Structure formats: structure tokens, C-alpha cells
């Protein structure tokens, strides 16, 4: 049986003090990952003696714009993200990703911070957020530090967060209007869409030249990373110079160079290639007009 004491904080300051003075504390936000893991007695949970409920910390629920960035409070739910005009205008492909998550009940309760921190290889917000070069603000009683999301997740269900820290801000740089993002996903079933594969592509195209591209598949590798070899193949090319049939196998080559051949490779290879091809086609379609 999993036994624990329940603690709660209404203010960030209290949460930081509790994290500092208690040992083996598990943070609880929307609970849509943790309560499932508790029910299934999942090994992923690790040992913990306390649950610290942060779901009522109002100061961590906001979406704000600064001159250079958009800042999201970690306790924003997927529904808040979807309903935010700012996010819809700036990063529509992030909204596309959020809309594919679970069901309304899951989106109403599950949080952005929880999705990131759970560090599932299949977390749907992580690929688009990595493509956007998202930074995280981590806070503890000692102060704040900033970590790129790419460095925060260090393995499947593993992060570089210290036991006395929590995510207090998700910081997305603003992007030029020449950027266009796509998010694609193959799920098992619509209602419970723990992705088997997903893919975020963010491309900057100017006068038909791909000046920048960031390609981040989810569930293809132990944790989502940018496929930089593939990116380098594409950057600097004109759209009409890119032959999709030639370039698509490179995405699975890069996947296999990271994971090796696995039991799932025969399925993931063609599926990832097909997702990538579809993604690139929709990017080309936008810029050909």
C-alpha cells in the first residue's frame, strides 16, 4: 500500500518552505498523472512520504505577455491554454497539441507544469514547447534558476529538478511572424490519447527559403529531443529544392541512431516518416500560397 501524509499550500512561499523542511515530498497539481500512478501502484512514483497539494496556489495560474516572451504559470490547465487568445494567436500549434490531450475532464484538471514535470516520453506539450525554446523558472527557498526545457527533462520520467524545487514559470520566447508550427499525433484512441507518436515542427520560411526549422518528435526517443541532423539537412534550402521522398527516411534514421533497433521500431519507423511527410506538406502548403 502507498501511504502518505497530505500537506497543502495556498501560497508559493509556504510551498517552498514545506519543500525545504520535509523529506520525500511529492508535488500534486491536477493529479491526472499522480492519482493514476497511485491507483496502479506504479514504480514510477518512487518513494514518498508526503504529498504537497499545490493546486490551490492562485499566483501560479496566469498567462501573461512581456516584451520578449509569453509566461505561463505552471498551474494553468490545458483548458486555460486552449481558451487563451494570446496563446492561440502566438503559438497556434501549441493549442492544437493541448486539444489532443485526453478528454475535457483531463484538460480541465491536468496542468501544463504537470505535463512537463511528469516527463513522459509521450507528453504532448513537450515537443512543441521544446521547439519553441521554452525556458523554465525553478524556485526554491534559495532562490530562482532558469533551465531550458531541453535540459530539464533528462530521461523517461526523469527531470533535473532538485527535491526542494518546483516549476514556477514556463517562459516561451516570442517568435517572428515568419514562423509556422505544426503538431501531429497518432493516438491509440481519441478519448484517451496517450500518444504513441507525436511530432512538432516549427519552421521559419522567408522568400521560399527555410531559414530555421526545429523538429521534435515525441514517443520516438526515450524523451523528446530536437532532431538536429535532420534540421541541418533542411536549413538554408529552398522549399522547391526539398524532395520529401528523399528527406523523410532521415527522420527514422535519426530516431534509430538514438534508440537503436527496438521491438517497436518496425511500427514507429514508417509511422514517424508518414507524420513528418504530412507535417512538411502542410508547411509547404502554407508558404506556397
Amino acid at each position, binding site marked *: 500500500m*502507498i*501511504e*502518505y*501524509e*497530505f500537506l*497543502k499550500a*495556498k501560497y508559493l512561499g509556504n510551498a517552498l518552505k514545506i519543500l525545504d523542511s520535509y523529506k520525500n515530498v511529492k508535488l*500534486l497539481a*491536477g*493529479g*491526472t498523472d499522480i*492519482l*493514476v500512478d*497511485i*491507483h*496502479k501502484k506504479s514504480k514510477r512514483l518512487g518513494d514518498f512520504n508526503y*504529498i504537497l*497539494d499545490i*493546486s*490551490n496556489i492562485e499566483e501560479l495560474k496566469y498567462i501573461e505577455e512581456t516584451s520578449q516572451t509569453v509566461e505561463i504559470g505552471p498551474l494553468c490547465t490545458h*483548458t486555460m491554454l486552449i481558451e487563451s487568445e494570446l496563446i492561440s494567436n502566438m503559438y497556434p500549434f501549441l493549442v492544437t497539441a493541448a486539444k489532443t490531450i*485526453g*478528454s*475535457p*475532464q*483531463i484538460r*480541465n*484538471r491536468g496542468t501544463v507544469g504537470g505535463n512537463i514535470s511528469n516527463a513522459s516520453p509521450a507528453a504532448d506539450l513537450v515537443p512543441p514547447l521544446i521547439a519553441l525554446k521554452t525556458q523554465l523558472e525553478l524556485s526554491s527557498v534559495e532562490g530562482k534558476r532558469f533551465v531550458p526545457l531541453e535540459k530539464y527533462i533528462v530521461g523517461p520520467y526523469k527531470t533535473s529538478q532538485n527535491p526542494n524545487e518546483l516549476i514556477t514559470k514556463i517562459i516561451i520566447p516570442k517568435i517572428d511572424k515568419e514562423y509556422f508550427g505544426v503538431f501531429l499525433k497518432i493516438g491509440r484512441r*481519441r*478519448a*484517451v490519447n496517450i500518444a504513441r507518436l507525436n511530432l512538432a515542427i516549427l519552421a521559419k520560411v522567408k522568400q521560399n527559403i527555410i531559414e530555421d526549422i526545429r523538429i521534435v518528435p515525441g514517443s520516438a526517443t526515450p524523451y523528446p529531443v530536437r532532431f538536429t541532423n535532420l534540421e541541418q539537412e533542411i536549413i538554408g534550402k529552398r522549399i522547391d529544392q526539398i524532395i520529401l521522398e528523399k528527406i523523410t527516411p532521415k527522420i527514422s534514421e535519426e530516431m534509430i541512431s538514438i534508440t537503436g533497433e527496438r521491438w517497436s521500431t518496425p511500427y514507429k519507423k514508417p509511422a514517424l516518416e508518414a507524420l513528418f511527410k504530412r507535417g512538411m506538406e502542410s508547411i509547404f502548403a502554407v508558404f506556397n500560397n
Partner: protein
Amino acid sequence: MNKISVTFYVNGKKEVLEVTPKERLLDTLRDQLKLKSVKEGCDVGECGACTVILNGQAVHSCLVLTAQLDGDEVYTTESLEKDGLLDPLQQAFIDHQAVQCGFCTPGILMSAKALLNKNPNPTREEIKTAIEGNLCRCTGYEQIIQAIESVSEKKLSSR
């Protein structure tokens, strides 16, 4: 195990309760408050049978610890019937034969109610999205969608 004192509102009535750290909202509603419309299905957020409305939004009561509540407002299917009269949505489920075994029905009613409260004239697509987290093994959904459509404001006023 510590006991936690929580205060919240259920179907409009204030409740002050003692709960254990592991007690889910599902357990509190069914066992402490005897609100048996809230059904326990999968326990892991996949079937929607335990759906209630929390602060205006449909959520799975199997994925909320009651100790997390703090002045929040919860509504269950028991709140729909007023003075012995069924809510139009409930009546529509009967009229459209949207109920067979009935196990999924309270959860679907709550998902539909949360939608209609926000959006009294949902499109068919919006209705489908609202109930995508509720599994029904019996009806095939068509009757459920029709029942919900029939109580949209437009449909009601054209009757």
C-alpha cells in the same frame, strides 16, 4: 495517516468533512454523502462514469483528492431534479432512449450539463467533444447526441 478537514459545497449545500489523505472525491461523494449517481468505473480517468461538475467544469472525481478542495463547488446528477421535476436534459435522455443500462448516464449528464451551461447552443461537433471522455457500451452514442441537441436553446424555443 493524518485526517484533513475540508469545507466545500455539494449541490449547493455547505459540507464540512474530515477526510483521509487517500480519499478521492468519488469516495467522499458516494460513501460519506451517499450520492450514488456518481459511478465508479475504471478509477483511472478513462471511462468518465465518475464525472462531476467542479467549479463549472466537468472533471473525473476519481482523479481529485477530496483534501484538495477548499471552498469549491461540486455538482452531481442529484442536483438536476428540482421539486420532483426532471431537468429537461434528463427528460430528453428518456425521450430519445439515450439510456440503456444507465451506468454511464450520470457522467454523461454532467459532461453535457457543463457544456450547456457554458454554451447553450452547441454544435454537434462540440457535443461530441464534450462527451468524448465518457464511454458508453450500450447506446452507440447517436441517441445521446440527439438528446443533448434537443435541449439546446434554439431547439427548445422552436418547440
